[in-house]
């Protein structure tokens, strides 16, 4: 188990001031494996049966750099359970762009108890939650790569004080990931994959 973060480390945490995110290759692969597994319809026991992958990104901060140490996939989706359904239906109707998939089949929301357990795990390990990740799979005419946040992503991340990691799985052979503070395009921070030498993945 990781040691607890020192007070000095905690005081350094100002996520919105981060200038780069360092992601070890192994953590990037964990995100990819999660996305590919969901796309393949290979579900774990207790996991919502939907081809969407999302989860929590946690780690430590080294000055202006955030270093990813944990990827915590989320299993459950409560989007169709009340009271979340009413809230999500309203948001979807107001902000989601039309697509082939009906609004009632779009959108997801994490189970709060599962998210709470993730946060408690990060606390125990002395990690800070940097953000969340989720994948986009359908290309849009105006956004063929889908590696940027949508208007809906932005609305749902408003005031989150977290990074939104957008994983483009439009082309499974060429996946991409980009990070945006509160899903704002103007507040993108580069992700560097760490594998011997640093190489940009987005």
């Amino acid at each position, binding site marked *: 188990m990781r040691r607890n973060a020192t*007070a000095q480390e*905690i*005081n350094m*945490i*100002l*996520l919105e001031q981060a200038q780069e995110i360092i992601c070890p290759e192994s953590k990037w692969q964990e995100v990819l494996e999660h996305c590919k597994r969901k796309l393949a319809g290979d579900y774990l026991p207790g996991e919502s049966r939907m081809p*969407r992958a*999302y989860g*929590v990104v946690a780690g430590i901060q080294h000055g202006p750099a955030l270093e990813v140490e944990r990827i915590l996939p*989320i299993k459950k989706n409560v*989007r169709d359970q009340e*009271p*979340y359904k009413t*809230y*999500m239906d309203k*948001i*979807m109707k107001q*902000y*989601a762009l039309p697509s082939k998939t009906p609004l009632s089949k*779009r*959108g*997801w*929301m*994490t189970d*709060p*108890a599962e*998210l*709470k357990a993730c*946060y408690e795990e*990060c*606390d125990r390990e002395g990690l*800070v*939650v940097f953000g*969340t990740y*989720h994948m986009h799979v359908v290309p849009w005419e105006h956004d063929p790569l889908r590696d940027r946040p*949508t208007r*809906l*992503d932005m*609305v*749902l991340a*408003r*005031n*989150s*004080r*977290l990074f939104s990691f957008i994983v483009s799985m439009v082309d499974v052979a060429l996946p991409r990931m980009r990070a945006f503070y509160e899903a704002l395009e103007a507040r993108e921070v580069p992700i560097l994959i760490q594998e011997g030498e640093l190489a940009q993945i987005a």
Partner: protein
Amino acid sequence: MPRVIIPFPLRKYADNQREVVIDGDNLKETIERLLQQYPEFKTLNDDAVFVSVFINHYLVRAAFEKWGELAVDRDDEISLVIPIAGG
């Protein structure tokens, strides 16, 4: 007095504390005092954000108007969880 576990994104507004002790006899009073003490937690009042509240690991399913009827005591732990959602 119950302990309130602060969600990660809001800790910087509470001197980076994981939890704070707030005086309150019921959930509504505790949350209102929390917001008075940390006005930067305005996210909790933003109707665009759906905040889940737990008392000792039990999710509070009652509507906000009923929170005054949910007694809390000094050994209780209140956790606030801001959900992750996407389209």
